[in-house]
């Protein structure tokens, strides 16, 4: 992990993390409703795990950013359904639906995009401030 040098590192890495979150939402939604013949094969929703990365001299600077440490599968079990005519049905006529909660994913999407926007806002504000500071005394 590289050190945190300036405000662009802070917000940039946060944006990257939120983008990973949006990607997992997209892949979860794409796989929602898919059917598998065994419990193990069934798709389980993926969730990124966020963790704070602190700057080296935290007591002095107080700055930190966020990184995705791992992408975990949800522990929720895939739903078992009785569909004997489905081509993927097992010997007893059961299929397993992907463990994805569409409502949860939609909420996640809205929250992630909102927080992405917040970080963009911070960066553009800081950029404008820096430009004004560079032109100081002119």
């Amino acid at each position, binding site marked *: 992990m590289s050190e945190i040098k300036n405000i662009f590192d802070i*917000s940039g890495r946060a944006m990257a993390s939120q983008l990973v979150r949006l990607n997992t939402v997209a892949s979860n939604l794409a796989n929602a409703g898919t059917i598998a013949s065994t419990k193990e094969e069934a798709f389980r929703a993926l969730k990124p795990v966020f963790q704070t990365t602190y700057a080296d001299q935290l007591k002095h600077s107080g700055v930190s950013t966020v990184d995705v440490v791992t992408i975990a599968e949800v522990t929720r079990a895939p739903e078992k359904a009785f569909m004997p005519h489905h081509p993927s049905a097992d010997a007893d006529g059961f299929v397993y639906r992907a463990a994805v909660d569409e409502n949860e994913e939609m909420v996640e999407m809205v929250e992630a995009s909102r927080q992405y926007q917040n970080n963009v806002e911070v960066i553009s504000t800081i950029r404008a401030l820096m430009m004004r*500071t560079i032109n100081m005394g002119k």
Partner: protein
Amino acid sequence: MNFHAQALELRSRRNEILASNIANAATPNFKARDLDFDSEIKRHVGIGPLQTTNDQHFPTMVAAPDNKMLFREPINPSLDGNTVELSVEQMEFSENVTRYQTTLTFLNNRITGLMSAIKGE
């Protein structure tokens, strides 16, 4: 001039801290931090080169003290232990940015004044 320079530095540091809070808005167990500008600026102003009373004294510069980091008290605590409230952080950030620009304007006016004094126009 020194006061405004210190204020500008402190404001920019506070911007970084608030940006960190906003960056960690979705991290479980993150505790939002901040610094108290009023008390910090009082500590920072008046710190400068050490006065020397003898020619053989070495001129030294006293390093600025560490900023006192404080934790923010959440208004509506959330279940995941995160104390970042976006509305609060955005409000603090925009206030801090405005005050940074104010300090910048003061400095600009000061520099313009000095320049016209130098040119004697």
